[in-house]
């Protein structure tokens, strides 16, 4: 009789412990990553500039977002050839916060640095000023189209 009594008590304790640990919590592991992200866009559409001897300006804006540091914006002509002698087109970008602009820079088919020192920035509506300048040596009646590409690079 005594042995039976002890066996039943033991079973009761095990049953209680199992139920007390019922799943009132649940855990998920979430894996996260943030990669380098650099993006620049230009707003306002195409620019048409007519210039006699002298200068004419046009304005646009750009937006830039990067989670990187020490970024640079370059600009170059990517469709079309360099402008003929006597005709230049410069671009002048307003720098994002804490970055530096190189001011008006002549555009050619070679990438030129326009803005330096960009870091962890997310801004829009930053100014772009195009200035077309012709001298007396520029060919009259010249007309051409160029594509200007801006790139943000490490």
């Amino acid at each position, binding site marked *: 009789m005594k042995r039976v009594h002890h066996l039943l008590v033991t079973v009761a304790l095990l049953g*209680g412990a199992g139920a007390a640990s*019922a799943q009132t919590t649940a855990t*998920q592991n979430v894996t996260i*990553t943030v990669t380098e992200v650099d993006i620049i866009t230009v707003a306002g559409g195409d620019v048409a500039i007519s210039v006699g001897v002298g200068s004419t300006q046009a304005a646009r804006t750009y937006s830039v977002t990067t989670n990187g540091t020490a970024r640079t914006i370059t600009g170059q002509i990517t469709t079309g050839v360099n402008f003929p002698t006597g005709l230049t087109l410069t671009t002048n970008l307003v720098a994002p916060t804490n970055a530096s602009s190189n001011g008006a820079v002549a555009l050619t088919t070679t990438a030129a640095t326009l803005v330096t020192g960009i870091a962890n920035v*997310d801004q829009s509506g930053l100014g772009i000023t195009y200035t077309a300048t012709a001298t007396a040596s520029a060919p009259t009646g010249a007309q051409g189209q160029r594509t200007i590409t801006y790139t943000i690079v490490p």
Partner: protein
Amino acid sequence: MQRIEHCVVALLLTLSAPFAGAQVLSVSGNPSSLTVSTATAGLGLDPVVDASTTYSVTTTLPNQKIVARLTTALPSGVILKVRLQPPSGVTALGDISLTTTNADVVGPIPVIGPHLTLSITYTLSALVTAGTVSTTGRDVVFSVVAGP
């Protein structure tokens, strides 16, 4: 013979008492990896969403709620939000930013019983000031507690 009878009664009470107050919570597994890798210029980094997992909760008491917390803080500038589909009749709380402090993710559930296969949606976003974040994991602990 008298002693044996008493022991059997005690056994039944011990087994049934925990079930009367025990809430059961489970999740379907871990969500897919969340990677922030794109942006909209001037509008910040694009958040990413995962809604691949679910949870089930069985309540045995009324007005139990679910809270959630991280066991380890996120890197600075990184935001992880979670949204749990509430059981029927429970008001949705929307996206809740996870921290190391418990926050309500499901409000008091008035109806006792099973509430099965409800969606869990994670949203990961980051400020540009966060820089890059190497792949890392964070445990999210969901708990059933008495409301409200």
